[in-house]
């Protein structure tokens, strides 16, 4: 139980990647704060599953895009636990539009939830890690570096998140806080199924050299490693979990290329 006695906040951990991370870190002994925004039932289920692993779970509803709600969440954590060891910045939202259709409202909504929330969470979390060190891991995506359809504003927000990860890693290093990010390609979650059609899911599977789509547990395993002492010398990095997709971008077109002259 490498994380026994630790306290971890996982934002957006009712479902999907956040839930998988919460369960993974709980299985390693950490108490977990389950933050959610829209689906209490899912968050309560995650908390129940965490408690079944023999650790504590605390469910807190907060829109991480709202600074006042974030403050309330951290006030509750400070009161209930007195400190924090691990911050997982996972909660995300976004508006799928082409660049020319992104308006100020869509930009602010996405940037506030995906990027500004990490700034504000890290500032509060660093205080709760004072004198004891800690880990921070952000969940980002390949859309920060690659162009994906209607992903402009989300991609920009994830790029900001990765830059912030680097700056925080350096500024917080003297305090014994390790800061890194994990970038996944399309992860097979309910949320993804909601956003993209089955045909595209099949295309993604075929374009993944590892032979299947990334699942939430793949991301959770890497996050758990970054939260371990073995990862102590990794700072400010974005670790890609994509089954090889990003280093083999033309693999999906192999058959077509073979017949072209």
């Amino acid at each position, binding site marked *: 139980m490498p994380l026994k006695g630790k306290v971890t906040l996982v934002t957006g951990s009712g479902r999907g990647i956040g839930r998988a991370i919460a369960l993974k870190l709980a299985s390693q002994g950490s108490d977990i704060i389950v933050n959610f925004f*829209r*689906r*209490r*039932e899912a968050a309560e289920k995650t908390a129940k599953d965490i408690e079944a692993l023999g650790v504590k779970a605390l469910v807190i*509803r907060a*829109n991480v895009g709202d600074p006042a709600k974030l403050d309330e969440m951290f006030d509750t954590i400070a009161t209930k636990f007195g400190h924090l060891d691990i911050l997982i910045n996972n909660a995300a939202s976004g*508006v799928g539009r082409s660049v020319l259709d992104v308006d100020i*409202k*869509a930009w602010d*909504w996405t940037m506030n939830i995906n990027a500004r929330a990490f700034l504000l969470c890290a500032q509060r979390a660093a205080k709760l890690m004072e004198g004891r060190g800690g880990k921070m891991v952000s969940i980002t995506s390949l859309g920060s570096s690659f162009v994906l359809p209607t992903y402009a504003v989300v991609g920009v927000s994830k790029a900001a998140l990765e830059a912030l990860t680097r700056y925080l890693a350096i500024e917080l290093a003297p305090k014994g806080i390790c800061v890194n990010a994990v970038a996944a390609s399309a992860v097979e979650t309910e949320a993804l199924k909601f956003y993209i059609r089955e045909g595209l899911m099949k295309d993604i599977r075929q374009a993944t050299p590892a032979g299947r789509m990334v699942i939430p547990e793949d991301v959770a395993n890497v996050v758990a490693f970054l939260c371990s002492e073995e990862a102590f010398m990794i700072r400010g990095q974005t670790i890609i979990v994509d089954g090889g997709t990003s280093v083999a971008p033309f693999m999906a077109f192999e058959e077509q290329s073979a017949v072209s002259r």
Partner: protein
Amino acid sequence: MSVEEEIKEIVAGIVHVDKGILTREGSLRKDIKADSLDIVQALVAVEDKFDIEIPDEEAQKFQNFGDFVDYVERRVAEKEKV
């Protein structure tokens, strides 16, 4: 101010329309051209205002503005009873 009036103020502020055009029979999407982000923001603002939760599954059932108001009124009444 009634629950309905408060919701009208919230929605009108988010979608930037005159609250007078919001009717119980009207559709947020079709009649006042609210997009999906407007609707999420309105739901969140109403949740915060009345300290209730509106699950997405329930929100998807709203056929018009009146359904939205009725749901919130029911939840507020339930909360007051507790």
